[in-house]
């Protein structure tokens, strides 16, 4: 009897534990995500694949660019065609030698903690970034930034170690050069380990946030600029692309926006239903193939040109990206500054490709499928990111296309980090590569053509005019003369095209799909900016 009782007690205890666990679980979501769906008619709900993170303006992952750009503002903003316009800085002057930028801040700008935007706060922000210079060395302006000097309450001076023309473009990026308010800084001023609260000057303030579930942003009532039409934006965290589309179809989302946030199939499906509005942005970046000129077989220009001529780019782009990307003939699309209209496209031409290979000495034996030279087969390796379905499909297509001209292409799907590692080590023949988009390009793109450490300059190091090319890049970046710069860009881009060390494949675009109550949607010119300021909803 006693034993029976103890068993019974044990059972009861277990049942109680289970009940407790369940009730504990349900308590903490009393204010669940259902509340996130606002009753406010002047609001929209969209989704994002990842949690928005701590929204620290000076660090990267896991903070998300889209929400960082809602809260924090830059000194200057990047507009259509690469034009740089005043934002928090009202005006600026550049010294003759291009090393000193004097900025005048806009008057009356308030952070959401009530404090004012002053030169001191700007200096504090830059000092915090410079304290971790290493982490930001990818951004040119930080690399050459010597110090910030406060001139008066609203004037400050940015002193560079050398002239660097894209300094202003770099100041328009989302991180790490946007302004955090005084109250957001930790006591020691080192924001690299975290901020106390997201205090910005931007048009949006974070109102409600639940990790991994949703974030609600309200319009900043004290915003200095033109207030957005919308009162509220809810961002739901939906990691799965198919679920995102289903939630959109049900009407739980008003907007699907971004790069790669829905599959191309789904996008076309939404478009074809005719029930929603869908749109594509201007090109944001170029999908390119990086050709390693230090690889023995690819050191010959004829082989590189043969590969460039040897595949039907148009058909590949249409077939794989379903028309969502556009065939690219030049590495820089025409909506970027310094893009060259007169760069000659290297068109699809199998016969030309074959004759280039013949000329290079790679002969096709009768009855053979692979070209040979000195008993060696023409065999190349293309590495790609195995989690990227487009890279995989393109790699497979190229394998088939190039086999028709007698080239055996081996394709190797790698983890992204391994792909980067091998690129840096020069341990590849061909690799997918992307430029950086606005506001980083074209200066970031030409920078990696000359600067070692990214794997690109190394892959180009076998070019006969490499020293000259590097010199032209350095000159362009430091040049204060607009005409000269234009000229230099022309030469650099033409060399890269003629040498076929980059094979441009397609221009990538952002996609958007929205419900019909949304009006006046516009893609931001800056790739990383949010689109909410222009949106209005019909009531």
């Amino acid at each position: 009897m006693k034993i029976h009782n103890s068993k019974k007690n044990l059972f009861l205890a277990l049942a109680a534990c289970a009940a407790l666990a369940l009730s504990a679980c349900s308590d903490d979501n009393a204010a669940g995500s259902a509340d996130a769906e606002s009753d406010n008619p002047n609001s929209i709900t969209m989704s994002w694949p990842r949690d928005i993170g701590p929204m620290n303006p000076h660090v990267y992952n896991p903070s998300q660019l889209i929400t960082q750009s809602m809260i924090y503002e830059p000194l200057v903003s990047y507009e259509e065609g690469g034009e740089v316009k005043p934002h928090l800085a009202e005006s600026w002057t550049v010294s003759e030698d291009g090393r000193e930028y004097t900025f005048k801040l806009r008057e009356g700008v308030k952070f959401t903690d009530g404090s004012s935007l002053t030169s001191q706060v700007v200096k504090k922000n830059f000092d915090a970034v410079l304290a971790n210079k290493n982490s930001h060395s990818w951004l040119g302006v930080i690399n050459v930034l010597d110090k910030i000097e406060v001139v008066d309450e609203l004037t400050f001076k940015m002193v560079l170690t050398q002239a660097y023309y894209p300094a202003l473009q770099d100041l328009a990026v989302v991180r790490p050069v946007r302004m955090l308010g005084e109250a957001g800084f930790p006591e020691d001023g080192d924001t690299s380990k975290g901020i106390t609260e997201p205090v910005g000057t931007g048009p949006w303030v974070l109102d409600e946030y639940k990790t991994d579930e949703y974030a609600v942003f309200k319009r900043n009532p004290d915003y200095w600029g033109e207030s957005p039409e919308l009162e509220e934006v809810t961002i739901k965290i939906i990691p799965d692309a198919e679920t995102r589309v289903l939630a959109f179809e049900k009407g739980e989302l008003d907007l699907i926006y971004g790069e790669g946030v829905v599959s191309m199939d789904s996008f076309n499906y939404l478009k074809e239903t005719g029930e929603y509005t869908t749109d594509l942005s201007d090109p944001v970046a170029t999908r390119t193939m990086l050709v390693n000129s230090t690889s023995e077989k690819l050191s010959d220009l004829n082989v590189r040109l043969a590969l460039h001529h040897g595949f039907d780019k148009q058909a590949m782009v249409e077939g794989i990206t379903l028309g969502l990307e556009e065939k690219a003939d030049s590495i820089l699309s025409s909506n970027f500054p310094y893009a060259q209209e007169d760069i000659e496209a290297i068109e699809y031409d199998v016969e030309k490709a074959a004759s280039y290979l013949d000329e290079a000495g790679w002969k096709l034996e009768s009855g053979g499928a692979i070209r040979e030279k000195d008993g060696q087969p023409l065999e190349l390796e293309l590495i790609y990111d195995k989690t990227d379905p487009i890279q995989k499909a393109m790699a497979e297509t190229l394998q088939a296309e190039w086999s028709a001209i007698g080239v055996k292409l081996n394709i190797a799907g790698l983890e992204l980090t391994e792909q980067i590692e091998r690129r840096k080590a020069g341990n590849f023949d061909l690799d997918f590569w992307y430029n950086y988009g606005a506001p980083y390009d074209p200066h970031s793109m030409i920078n990696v053509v000359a600067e070692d450490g990214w794997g690109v300059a190394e892959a180009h190091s076998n070019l006969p005019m490499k020293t000259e090319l590097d010199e032209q890049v350095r000159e362009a970046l430091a040049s204060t003369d607009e005409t000269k710069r234009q000229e230099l860009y022309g030469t650099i881009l033409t060399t890269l095209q003629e040498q076929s060390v980059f094979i441009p494949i397609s221009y990538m675009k952002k996609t958007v799909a929205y419900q019909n109550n949304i009006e006046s949607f516009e893609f931001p010119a800056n790739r990383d900016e949010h689109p909410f300021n222009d949106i209005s909803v019909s009531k």
Partner: protein
Amino acid sequence: MVIYLIKRLFAVVPIILFAIFLMFVLVRLSPVDPAQAYLAASNIHPTEELLAEKRQEFGLDRPLIVQYFQTVADIVRFDFGNSYVTNTPVWQEITTRLPATLQLALSSILVAIIVSVPLGFLSAVYKNSWLDHFSRLLSYLGASIPQFWLGYVLIFFFAVKLDLFPVEGRGTWQHFVLPSITLSLALIAIYTRLLRASVLEELEEAYVLYGRTRGLKEKGIMAKHVLRISISPMLTGLGMNLGKLLTGTIIVEQVFSWPGFGRFFIEAIFNRDIPVIQSYVVLAACLFIVCNLIVDIIQLYLDPRISREGRAQF
């Protein structure tokens, strides 16, 4: 009983140590350098100096054997370290997200038990009836349908077309329905078959015949004896599945945007966030062990034929 429990608890130590060892080796066997992965995830250009700095910060520059003992020592002190990506203590990341995962796992188990016990039992008692055929069909489907696909199908019909439930998220009871069904169907398939088979087996036993000849009521025999004994193998399955279920919520969490720990773990794998990966492995190992232990204890209670002395010598 107490001695049995103590012995079982002590056996946990080598198992967890082995799990840590296995995890440690597997993570290091991967060609991806965590420092490199961290920088890639942060969009920071990985210069050699920065990589070296990060490796030192993460303690990856020390000899492997030192790293291993440090890992064990940290875990023993319940110090799971900080996530490389979020820079927040992993323990805090776990405790914020685990309730959601537990909740989903428990509700799925509940659905599975509620459906499979009567279904398995009745389909054995009414063998070859329409109910039996139905249960077989359900088991067949449950065992063969991939969870993510089932999730999408359920969302499509019940959330989008019929508008009965929300597509994703967490908060109200409605949010539970579709993910719980998705997760429990596979369990229902297993449990129903297990229970059906063991009930059929028990029905052949002499004590059933004896009960009947003694004039005991059929219902009494079934409920008090047959069901009680035949439920034992199902409980074993349940115990083994509880741990699996918690780790198996990953896909369902992804499909239904459930803010649990599984999703966080997927990201951790991509980012080679070692502190998170190792905490997850240790936690999963503990869960498996504890669940099995609980099931063994329940079985002791349910089936008198399993002698406590006998089990104590395991």
